[in-house]
């Protein structure tokens, strides 16, 4: 089944903020202006990856404007990003008390309840959201997810169908619809939806996976195997992309975890081996660096892989093997200055050699 469209899936915990009715006496225009400023500031902080600072700003704002449903909603989102779902839920509940028909908040609370396994409540919130705003893609989609989880497959199919009408090019919706059709035993229709999802977003690994499952059920074995390969590649690619973000932030440990996950998804993913070789070398774990660089060279016998292996071996103190591999790299790419420099370094003619 497809996951939520809403990005805020992590929890947060927060001090309860009393509603001070005095604040509603403030002039409406000034209040709106202040609210807008606060939301912009919090939004900017969240965009910078600082949800805790965003939450602080929002809580201060709530002290000044306690009747602002929007501030409570945003505080809930910040709480989710901080991994504090119960506090997030408290903020959403307050937001709904202040503004009962807030579709965005009903949806967020529905998603939160669903993830906590409170599906009945989740369904109620999401049904309320779609009854107020039938054109809300997030509400329709998440209602479909919850209905499928509750075993109401026909209801889920109908909700996915509405979501697909709102956004026919939304791959996650088509994937979800395909999954429900599969559970209903409508395998050919499921295959069509899942193919559409995969075509719309080739990086959507779950779509490839479900498509492979449907193909196996339909007896289309070769097609299933092919889709499984795409699934593995898409999955590994996602982890490598996340690893690159961590590498840019200088967080080697998290990068290594993501790269290991990439290899868990697809052991033959060359880029993951190559990057892990470099990460472990920087972390001083030479044996693992060599192992991954060697695997990358096995899988992708090109000069750059040989050179990387030479660097790792050099880092591990195995100059003899390092020299052998840098020679192999130079045999394929004779003029490459970096390789020549590394060769000199290995031979003791120059220092350096770390990539």
């Amino acid at each position, binding site marked *: *089944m*497809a*996951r939520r469209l809403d990005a805020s899936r992590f*929890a*947060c*915990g927060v001090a309860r903020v009393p509603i001070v009715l005095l604040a509603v006496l403030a002039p409406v225009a000034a209040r709106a202006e202040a609210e807008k400023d606060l939301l912009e500031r919090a939004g900017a902080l969240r965009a910078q990856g600082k949800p805790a600072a965003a939450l602080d700003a929002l809580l201060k704002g709530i002290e000044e404007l306690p009747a602002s449903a929007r501030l409570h909603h945003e505080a809930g989102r910040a709480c989710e990003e901080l*991994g*504090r*779902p*119960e*506090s997030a839920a408290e903020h959403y509940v307050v937001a709904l008390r202040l503004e009962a028909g807030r579709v965005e908040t009903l949806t967020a609370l529905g998603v939160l309840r669903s*993830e*906590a*396994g409170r*599906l009945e409540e989740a369904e109620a919130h999401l049904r309320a959201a779609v009854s107020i705003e039938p054109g809300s893609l997030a509400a329709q989609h998440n209602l479909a997810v919850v209905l*499928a*989880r*509750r*075993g109401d*497959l026909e209801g889920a199919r109908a909700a996915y169908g509405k979501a697909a009408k709102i956004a026919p090019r939304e791959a996650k919706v088509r994937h979800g619809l395909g*999954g429900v059709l599969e*559970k209903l035993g409508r395998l050919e229709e499921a295959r069509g939806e899942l193919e559409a999802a995969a075509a719309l977003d080739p990086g959507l*690994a*779950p779509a*490839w*996976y*479900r498509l*492979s*499952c449907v193909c*196996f*059920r339909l007896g289309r074995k070769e097609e*299933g*195997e092919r889709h*499984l390969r795409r*699934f593995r590649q898409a*999955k590994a690619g996602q982890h490598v992309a996340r690893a690159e973000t961590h590498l840019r932030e200088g967080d080697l*440990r998290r990068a290594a*975890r993501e790269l*290991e*996950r990439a*290899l*868990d*998804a697809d*052991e033959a993913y060359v880029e993951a081996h190559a990057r892990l070789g470099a990460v472990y070398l920087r972390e001083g774990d030479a044996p*693992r660096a060599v192992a991954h660089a060697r695997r990358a060279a096995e899988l992708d016998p090109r000069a750059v892989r040989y050179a990387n292996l030479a660097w790792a071996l050099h880092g591990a103190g195995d100059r003899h093997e390092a020299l052998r591999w840098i020679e192999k790299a130079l045999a394929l790419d004779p003029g490459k200055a970096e390789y020549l420099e590394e060769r000199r370094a290995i031979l003791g003619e120059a220092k350096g050699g770390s990539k």
Partner: protein
Amino acid sequence: MNRGPASVAACALAGLLGPAPAASQIVFTDAAREAGIRFRHTDGGCGSRWFAEQVGSGVAFIDADGDGRLDLYFPSGVPLPGCPEADRATSRFFRNAGGGRFADATDASGLGEPGYATGCAAGDVDSDGDEDLFVACLGPDRLYRNERGRFADSAAEAGVADPAFGSSASFLDYDRDGDLDLYVASYVEVETGKEKRCTRGGLHVYCLPQDYPGAPDRLYRNDGRGRFTDVTPEAGVLMPRGRGLGVAVGDYDSDGWPDIYVANDTNENHLFRNLGDGTFLERGLEAGVAVSENGVLENGMGTDWGDWSGDGLLDLVVTNFDGQTNALYRSLGGGLFEDVSFASGTGEASLPYVGWASVFADLDSDGLLDLFVTNGHVFDNVARFQEGAAYAQPSLVHRNLGNGRFATRRLDRAASMEPRVGRGAAAGDYDGDGDLDIAVSNLNAEPFLLRNDSLRAGRWLGLRLAGTRSNRSAIGARVELRAGGRLQVREVKSGSGYLSQGDLRLLFGLGDARSIDSLVVRWPSGRVEDAAGRVILDAYVTLVEPGHVQ
């Protein structure tokens, strides 16, 4: 304890006067203390949060002295680097003295040797008529050979003393040559005492599995002369990246050859299909049981095979982390499975918990396999960084309603007991009353011995199978019983669930049926026997494989 037909009327009368368990309820009473079980598991830690501490240990129901009563073995950790030495063995063995009582017989049994013990599996590896015990360890594993109730470790001579971080294990006769082979899952490569320190928001926490390389599992072939040969690569089960925690063996494709399922933590789970020529083919993804239905790698912990849907095909369960469902699969036939976690109602109930042992067992004797799951978080300080989460978590009893759905009860509410940090669990009829009880190993705590006190008005059949041409424990034998229009399929299985060994006997509840229509035994040797005429109801019956004099 089971209240049979005579007591049903009394209970019905009592029901008029006050609350009594309904016939459809599964009722457990923790009888550990009154049974004389004096044991407290230790993870061996003392604040350093070494990775191994989280894994916990299993539990084994094993009839060590062949008296027909199930004894209990509780593996345990030993002090880890930097912690004070223990003054006595931490793993304990309790002999069943009858009358629902156990006596500590650790020293006399020879099972008290030091070692950081995690998982266990039982089977008669030397075909001498008694149950031997394999114990997986952090460090060299143990193979305890049973000589008339006294055990001696022969792992080194047998060639199975793998020093890797062993977790679950299971005996099986994968080549069907009549002796028991052995599959041992290994978790990660870790040098306890020399690990990195991991933090979360400044808080010292256990590291994650992804911080350690996976350790390959092992398949050992029994060469029949007291030695085993490691056949992992040539048998096609070498998966160097696997972080194996749970193992279950079952013939999912009904071809007569036992297949192996491995639940891996943060890796794809593996389904090794036995090709019948000494090799296996990994088919997890193709079968739909390797990852979540969204293709997400999950934290596989425990696993079990069982035909809960009653169609004659083995279904599967895998426990996972909180926020993930425990995956309940229904076999579609043709080697394919469908994830029915949510459709069955078990998925929703499992979301808040970190699941470990998963045990299929007919707990209310209605002929349908129910599901018992232990829970407990991995992070001892989880409450400090994850709202709403707790370290100790209740076990769940999922009662099979027979319509594809399960009704779930939390054990703490059903049996008025405080949650503990659950890990291994095993089902077995320790009091011999014809229903399945459950033993649970709790991390750093006393175990539960859950005596089944459910009402049962119906009849039952207990079978102990003894192989002659097949392996002596008849592990891998499949029994198909038809009664009251319902098909029940059970296989004799060695280690399963999570780090644990259940009763090697098979127990069938007949529900409303007064007699059986058919009983067919498919022995591991391939021999198929109509055994309906050889059994009596409401008793345990030993069936010896025909065709050979025992």
